[in-house]
């Protein structure tokens, strides 16, 4: 299946809030998306972006994830990226985001690091 209605779903906060991204994250990024995810970084110490089910993330969304991550670091917080697939990582490296994202292989690893 290509694309959900929404690019992500926010799971009820437990040990760090988890944002589960869709299979195809190629949606138009709206100001509402930006403020919703910015708000999560404001209000949580750890925001986990679960990309383990995402086959495609556009360069626009990847850049936005980096922006979130940088913002979190400035506030002494973390945005952890979990389960990024090889082709998504390839795209991320290609557009120069390689070292800027904190990548983890599992939710557990992201929580404990």
């Amino acid at each position: 299946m290509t694309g959900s209605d929404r690019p992500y779903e926010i799971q009820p906060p437990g040990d760090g809030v988890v944002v589960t991204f869709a299979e195809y994250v190629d949606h138009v990024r709206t100001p509402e998306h930006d403020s919703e995810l910015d708000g999560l970084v404001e209000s949580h110490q750890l925001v986990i972006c679960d990309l383990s089910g995402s086959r495609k993330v556009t360069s626009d969304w990847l850049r936005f994830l980096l922006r979130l991550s940088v913002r979190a670091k400035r506030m002494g917080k973390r945005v952890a990226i979990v389960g990024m697939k090889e082709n998504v990582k390839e795209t991320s490296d290609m557009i120069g985001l390689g070292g800027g994202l904190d990548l983890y292989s599992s939710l557990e690893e992201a929580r404990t690091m």
Partner: protein
Amino acid sequence: MWQRPDPSGDFFLVLPVQDKHVLVAAVDVAGHRSKAAPSAIYLQGWLRGWIRGLAVSPQLGALAETFLSELKATGMDAAWFFAMLTLDHKTGSMGYQGLSHAFPAPLLIADGRTLEGTRETGPHDVQVPALSHDRVAPPWRLIAASDGLLERLGAGNQARGKQTLLRWQIGSARDEPPSSYLRTEIAPDDDEALMVVTWNGWDETLEFPVADDAQRHRVVRLVRERVKALLGNAQAVAVDEALPEALENVHKHAYGSDGPVIVRFRQEDQRFRVEVADRGRGTAVTEGGGLKVMRHWAGPVDIRRAYPSGTIVSFTFGAQKAGEIE
């Protein structure tokens, strides 16, 4: 077609012949302006009559011989170029035969490559076999320009003018109408005329609002499934990577919000061509991350201006291995 509004001995015709042939004719009657124009009108009628009178499949050589006889009988002098295009409706390709007599050899551009467009005969020799290509796959364009126009483009040098014409017709402005490129207010030194015959052969053309996620996903899915069936899974992944980047560029750079996007595609021999066009500000493609991703997954990306506004981006899946950087 483009021609100066002045009376002229130059004319072009593109005429269907029977059910699968098209005759392309370019004729330049000797002489200038109103002295040559009546002959040009007569010869246009003669060519139409020749086609109407055909009882068998058209033969380019026979046309050339008969046309020369007519010129001789009427005392007219003209340079000419004829091409017979034979269309294959099933594959979208065409067979091509071209023959010219003292008319500047036209350009035949197929899939960005220049093919030899004609074979020129000597003044009295029309028995030379016509130049032919059995199967020219779309997209192709056939460009014929009069000597006067080539001289204008080449500042007095026809060969240089032809190079200018070629650069224009393979460059990013090739879809703009000639009138936006050729200024008619400049006083002509001679008759100036240009004909461009193009065939894109798209399988499908889909237009939708670029900010509509559901439509974007539907179109990406459609292209992916077609590519997967033709080229396999690796190229289907390349579609997932490249096509959304092109759509996002339209959204972000061409319109800054919503606006119409046109996605066209066609299947070729072990390749799949996709074109993404907008009617926006003409800046849908910048040397940013999206273009890098497109090039990485789909190979070379062709970018050109649309008319009257916008940008057209096209790429081909299967032209090279997915993920191979050009």
